[in-house]
C-alpha cells in the first residue's frame, strides 16, 4: 500500500516538470495502475509469498525518488542540493495534509531502500553454479555466521592452550566490557542477514571464554550501542528577572490536566496555585505531598517560591501535572547527577496512563455483562 502511494506521488512529481498542464498521461498512469492491481487480485497472492522486486525496478524507483526530491525542493522554494529527509517529510505533510489516525496510512515519501525490503541478488553465476559454498543449506548467511563464529571460538581456544603451555594463562584476563551495548534482536539479525532464523546461543559460549577480547571487533559487529537515557532530558534555561532572582519555568501534564510552574530562587517556601494558596486549593494532604515530593527528594524545600497554574482533570491528576512541571523546572537548578537521580525516582516521566475506553458488548472497559447460560 505504501509502495503504491510512493509510486503515485513519485510519478506525479516526476511528470510535473515535463507536463505543466497535461493531466491525461498522469490519470492514464493512475488508471493503468488501478486496472493492473485488479487484474493481479485474481491470482492467488498468498501462495506467491512476500512481493519480490527486481533490482532494476528498485533502481528505477531510486532514480524517480531523487528526481522527485529535487522537484519537491523546487516547489517548496528550497535548495535542491541540501534537501534532507526531514524536509521531505515536512513538505509532504504540508502538501498532502491527512487526518488519518494510522500513521502508516498517511502519504509518505521515503528512500526506496527503506520501503522495499532488501532482496537478495541472484545467487548463482551464468553456469548455474552458486557463488557461496553454503548455498545448498538454504540459509547461507546464517550458517556462514555460525561457521565463522565456530572458527573464532577455535582460534581463541588455541590461543588459550598456547598460553597454558607456556604457563602464562590467567583466567581473569580482561573479558570484554559489554555494558553500553545490547545484542541485535532476532528481527535485526534477520534484517542484516536477509534470512529467517531461529534462536542460537553460540555467541554466549564465545563470550564465556576469558580471552574473547581477541575477537572483539567481530562480536561488536553484532551488538547495537545503547545511549544513556539521561541524554534525552531537556533542561529549561535559567532566567534572571529585574531583582537578580534566578527563576525557571516548565510545563507538566497528567491525564487531561495541563500545568505550568514558575520556580523562583528567593528563599521563601510560598506556593501559589491559580492565584490561591496551595492549602486552599489542595485540601487533601496527598496532593500537597505530591507537590513537595521533588523538592523534598532534592532537599531544597524552603528555598523556592512556586507560582503554579493548572487546568483540566481532577484533583489528583492536577497534582500529578504540577509535580512533573516542578521536577522539570527544578532540573535547571541542579547538576546532571542529581537530575539523573530524579529521573530514576520516576519524577521526570510523564505518566502515560489514561482512562481506558468502554468497549461495545461490555458494560465498562473490563466489566462484561452478566453471563446467562440461556
Amino acid at each position: 500500500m505504501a509502495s503504491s502511494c510512493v509510486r503515485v506521488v513519485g510519478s506525479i512529481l516526476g511528470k510535473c516538470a515535463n507536463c505543466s498542464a497535461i493531466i491525461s498521461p498522469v490519470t492514464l498512469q493512475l488508471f493503468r495502475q488501478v486496472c493492473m492491481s485488479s487484474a493481479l487480485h485474481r491470482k492467488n497472492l498468498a501462495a506467491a509469498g512476500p512481493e519480490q522486486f527486481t533490482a532494476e525496478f528498485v533502481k528505477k524507483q531510486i532514480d524517480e525518488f531523487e528526481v522527485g526530491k529535487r522537484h519537491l525542493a523546487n516547489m517548496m522554494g528550497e535548495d535542491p542540493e541540501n534537501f534532507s529527509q526531514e524536509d521531505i517529510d515536512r513538505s509532504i505533510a504540508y502538501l498532502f495534509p491527512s487526518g488519518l489516525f494510522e500513521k502508516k496510512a498517511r502519504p509518505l515519501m521515503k528512500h526506496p531502500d527503506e520501503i522495499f525490503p532488501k532482496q537478495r541478488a541472484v545467487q548463482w553465476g551464468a553456469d548455474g553454479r552458486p557463488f557461496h559454498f553454503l548455498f545448498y543449506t538454504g540459509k547461507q548467511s546464517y550458517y556462514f555466521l555460525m561457521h565463522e563464529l565456530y572458527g573464532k571460538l577455535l582460534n581463541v581456544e588455541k590461543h588459550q592452550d598456547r598460553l597454558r603451555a607456556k604457563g602464562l594463562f590467567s583466567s581473569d584476563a580482561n573479558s570484554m566490557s559489554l555494558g553500553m551495548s545490547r545484542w541485535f534482536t532476532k528481527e535485526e539479525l534477520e534484517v542484516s542477514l536477509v534470512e529467517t532464523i531461529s534462536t542460537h546461543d553460540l555467541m554466549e559460549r564465545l563470550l564465556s571464554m576469558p580471552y574473547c577480547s581477541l575477537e572483539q571487533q567481530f562480536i561488536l559487529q553484532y551488538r547495537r550501542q545503547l545511549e544513556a537515557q539521561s541524554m534525552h532530558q531537556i533542561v529549561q534555561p535559567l532566567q534572571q528577572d529585574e531583582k537578580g532572582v534566578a527563576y525557571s519555568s516548565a510545563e507538566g501534564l497528567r491525564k487531561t490536566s495541563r500545568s505550568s510552574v514558575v520556580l523562583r530562587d528567593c528563599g521563601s517556601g510560598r506556593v501559589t496555585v491559580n492565584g490561591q494558596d496551595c492549602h486552599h486549593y489542595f485540601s487533601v494532604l496527598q496532593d500537597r505531598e505530591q507537590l513537595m515530593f521533588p523538592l523534598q527528594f532534592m532537599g531544597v524545600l524552603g528555598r523556592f517560591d512556586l507560582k503554579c497554574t493548572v487546568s483540566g482533570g481532577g484533583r489528583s491528576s492536577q497534582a500529578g501535572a504540577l509535580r512533573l512541571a516542578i521536577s522539570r523546572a527544578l532540573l535547571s537548578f541542579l547538576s546532571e547527577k542529581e537530575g539523573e537521580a530524579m529521573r530514576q525516582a520516576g519524577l521526570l516521566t510523564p505518566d502515560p496512563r489514561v482512562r481506558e475506553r468502554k468497549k461495545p458488548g461490555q458494560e465498562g472497559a473490563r466489566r462484561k455483562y452478566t453471563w446467562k447460560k440461556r
Partner: protein
Amino acid sequence: MDTHVLKMAASVSGLLKPWTSRVVLVRWSRYNPYYLEPEVRKEAYNRPETELSPEDQEERQLKTLRPIKAATSGVTSSVFDDPVISKFINMMMRQGKKVLAREIMLQTLENIKKKQVERYHKATGGQKEEIECNPYEIFHQALENCKPVVGLASIQKGGKSYQVPIPLTDNRRRFLAMKWMITECKENKHRRTLMYEKLSQELLAAFQKEGNVIKKKHELHKMAEANRAYAHYRWW
C-alpha cells in the same frame, strides 16, 4: 489495545452465532515492558560505589540506559511514607474514596498510640520498657503475626477435589493477612463501633498474638496439617 478492539468489533458483527468473549491478554500496561520501576527512597542514591555488590552495580548501570516509569501518586520520598501502610490503605479503600480510607488509617494509628501511652503511664517501672508505643511498629508486628505460613489450594484428582497445602509467596502472605484484618473489622463488629476503633483493637490483639485474625490463621494451619497426606498432589 487496538487489536483487541478490532477483534471485539469483528466478533460482534457475526450475528448468527451467540457472542462469547475470546481469551485475550488481560493484564497489560500503558508502559512498554522496556521501562523499569522507579526507586523513590533517597538512601538508595547516596550509597557510594564501593558499598555495592556486582549485581547492584550492574543494576545501576542498567538504570542509566533504560527509561523509567513515572512514580505513582500515592508514593513520596518522605520519611512518613510507608509502602505497607499505603498498600493497606488502598485495600481498605472503597469506591475510590482514598481520602476516607486515609482518614481511617490515621485515626487507627492515633488510637493505638493513645491506648499504648495510657498503658505506659499506668504501668510500673519494670513493665514500662516492654510496652511498645510506636504505632508503626505495632502495625508491622501485628501484620507479621497474622501472616500464614502455608496456604491451601483446591486440586482435582480422580474426580474428587482435595485441599492441598502449598507454600505461599511473600506477597500472597501479606495480602492474606491484610485481607483477613479488613474483612474481620468490617463484619464482626457492633453496629455502633467505628471502623478505626475496631481496627485498633484487632491490631493490638494481633500484636499480643490473640484475637480473631490470629485464630483464623491458626485454623488455616490446622487444616493444612490435617491435609498433610495430600501434599504430594502438588506438582509445582
